[in-house]
């Protein structure tokens, strides 16, 4: 089945809402991460497909990210309006950090991970150290926060594209 760019865009918004509901439910953090990652992947596909529907990015987020142009920041516009270089760099850093967080946990092997296998991965990646309480919950929250940041940026860009 062939999806159009605008279909990928619509599809990206629903799983993000579902991811938050699942996270708030507290019973399936790995599933919440899955839904959040799916939302970001769909968004990247929407941007990529809008330019070239023949693109074969599969599920590689890094590759999709490069091709999507989603991390585009309009530096000229910011400078023209008098934003400081520090403020401009901060916005870029914040967005890249959010995307990195998504890419790390949306690793191919983790896309279908159970709670237990996610915890094993976090342990091997030394990401459990110093976390009080449920580390999977904490990582799910960080992941969804990052995914939502990326989605917010994407929604803004998509609206500008539609003008």
């Amino acid at each position: 089945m062939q999806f159009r760019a605008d279909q990928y865009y619509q599809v990206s918004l629903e799983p993000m809402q579902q991811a938050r509901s699942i996270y708030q439910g507290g019973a399936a953090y790995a599933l919440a991460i899955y839904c959040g990652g799916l939302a970001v992947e769909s968004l990247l596909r929407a941007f990529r497909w809008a330019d070239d529907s023949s693109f074969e990015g599969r599920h590689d987020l890094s590759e999709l990210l490069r091709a999507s142009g989603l991390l585009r920041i309009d530096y000229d516009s910011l400078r023209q309006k008098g934003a400081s270089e520090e403020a401009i760099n901060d916005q870029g850093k914040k967005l890249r950090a959010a995307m990195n967080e998504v890419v790390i946990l949306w690793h191919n092997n983790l896309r279908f991970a159970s709670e237990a296998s996610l915890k094993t991965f976090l342990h091997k990646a030394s990401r459990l150290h110093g976390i009080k309480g449920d580390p999977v919950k904490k990582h799910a929250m960080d992941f969804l926060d990052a995914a939502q940041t990326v989605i917010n940026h994407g929604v803004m860009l998509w609206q500008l594209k539609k003008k």
Partner: protein
Amino acid sequence: MAAKEKIVDALFRALKPEYVRLDDDDGISGIVVSRLFEDMSALDRQTKIDEVLSAAPLSQDERRKVLMIAGVTPAEFETVGARIRVHKIRQMANGAVEVLLHGGSSDAGYVRDALNNQKGIRTTEPKPVIGAPGVLMSFRAKGPSASPLTRAKALQILKSDPYIEVMSNA
């Protein structure tokens, strides 16, 4: 009132946004730009927006139509190259025009300069519009007596600036 208008109304009342844009294509999605989101995580912003929607007079079907409303700060909105939005240009009786725009004093300063850069045009100090929905600034601009500034001329000047967007109903 349609669901989209009810949502826009609720967002304006609760979040004092600088800008709201919602589209209704197989579901409602869009952005709300507000300073209230500063220092809030992306998830907390969504929780806040959910609270606003829950308190709005929406039926269950209308609530289900909402796909995603992204909550962003003015600084984040700037990163995508969003232009300064001129909300209204009004012709005044004394051969001047009043310009209303979304944003803070730096945005108003930029729009003012776009007019001041034209020969003979002088502008007043921008002031916030009290009681407006969202954050609006206004100032007046006047041309020389030999060539008064008309609304049409002001529109032409502002529309030609790449960093200014004149709203369709301005």
